[in-house]
């Protein structure tokens, strides 16, 4: 057997509540983070990502209380990100119950943060979140540039080259979000995914645009090790368990849900 493909619900949190928008705007309340996380685990989620989407624009650190509450209910891994810019922020999040921390804007501004985090906590703890958008004016060899501050600022930095550099600096996983697809339900940006897959050996979590198991299977074909989604799970269209059954039907190797696998 091989490593299974992870199905990862993402909780975008603002002010302690789960919210969801389109292209990071027009946020709508989706519920309590700990309750949603527990429900997703029961459905068969392999991991949960908690992103404090309000943290960077408002300069706030991710609320530790949310992380503690989520940790208390979850027995699968939790990745936490949002506004993290210092080793001390990461340490507080890990102490509160995060298993991995995700950095985005702060690492773009100061790439040495990745080395600091990896040497302190190990590469397996450090996730680089890359928000990538198709370049409007060219200038990036891959055709994709990094956007920061929740998508409000284009950097002109090549997204694929940045992922490779981040791996060399100690990132143990790349959380790759297509800004152009986020919340659109048009499917993951496969060209971007393939380009980053060619460039790095660390696991890639595909994010942005998923609306169906077929989109997720396509992302796996393009090189994703895990598929992240938010909208599709929040609105009761699909449960994690139904997604995993459909993925298995499409030939993707997933962890069986507890009801399928005889417990010890």
């Amino acid at each position, binding site marked *: 057997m091989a*490593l299974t493909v992870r199905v990862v619900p993402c909780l975008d949190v603002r002010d302690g509540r789960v919210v969801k928008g389109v292209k990071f705007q027009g946020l709508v309340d989706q519920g309590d983070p700990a309750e949603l996380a527990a429900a997703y*685990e029961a459905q068969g989620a392999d991991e949960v990502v908690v992103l404090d989407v309000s943290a960077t624009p408002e300069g706030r650190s991710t609320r530790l209380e949310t992380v503690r509450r989520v940790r208390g209910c979850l*027995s699968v891994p939790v990745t936490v990100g949002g506004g993290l810019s210092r080793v001390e922020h990461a340490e507080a999040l890990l102490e509160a*119950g995060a298993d991995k921390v995700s950095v985005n804007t702060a690492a773009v501004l100061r790439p040495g943060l990745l080395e600091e985090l990896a040497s302190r906590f190990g590469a397996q703890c450090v996730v680089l979140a890359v928000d990538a958008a198709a370049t409007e004016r060219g200038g990036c060899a891959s055709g994709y540039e990094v956007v920061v501050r929740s998508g409000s600022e284009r950097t002109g930095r090549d997204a694929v080259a940045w992922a490779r550099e981040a791996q060399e600096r100690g990132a143990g996983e790349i959380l790759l979000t297509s800004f152009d697809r986020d919340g659109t339900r048009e499917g993951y940006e496969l060209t971007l995914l393939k380009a980053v897959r060619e460039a790095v050996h*660390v696991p890639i979590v595909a994010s942005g645009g998923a609306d169906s198991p077929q989109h997720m299977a396509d992302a796996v074909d393009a090189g994703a090790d895990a598929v992240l989604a938010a909208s599709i799970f929040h609105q009761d269209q699909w449960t994690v368990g139904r997604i995993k059954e459909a993925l298995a039907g499409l030939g993707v190797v997933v962890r069986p849900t507890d009801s399928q696998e005889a*417990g010890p």
Partner: protein
Amino acid sequence: MSEGRVRVVRTSTANLAAVRAAFRRLGHAVDVTDDPDLIAESARVVLPGVGAFSAALDAVRSRGLHEAVEARVRGERATLAVCLGLQLLAEGSEEAPGVSGLSILKGSAKRFDPSLGRVPHMGWNRIEAPGSADILRSGHGYFAHSYRLEEAPEGWTVAWSEYGGRFVAAVERGLVLACQFHPELSGRYGAALLSGWLEAGT
């Protein structure tokens, strides 16, 4: 309820929240300690594993905790080693050439070859336990590591996983359980395993 407490060896700045939460859900409080006497005497001890091989080993040795851990494991008393904790019991690791581990398990940890798959090996993989195991069972566990043992350590019951070839997913002997994966992050499978370890020998 001191009998029900689980003592966790303080190795470094290890993230212990998940370990605490997992045992709390099973009705057991968790204390973190670097007191060698407590580690020697406690009913149940966990050797956690996050961080670098040599730093964790230094932390254990500098406080004289290695002797207490070694005595427990050799005496087959209830001891759970997790992830790097398993590797610390081995003879060494490619991560820190020239540094000796506690050498209770034969063999050294070697790095996964990136050409065989993604490194770190991160995610859920199938664990195959032999029918002869007392505590270990087959199922899916969550892994997050770049180094592993490839050979079965002599004298231990071994559960295997596959990732570019088979590797040691866990070993058990008496009431000692050492897991390369994270039972505290392995959903119901992991909780059942922790529960089995807590109940073994009682």
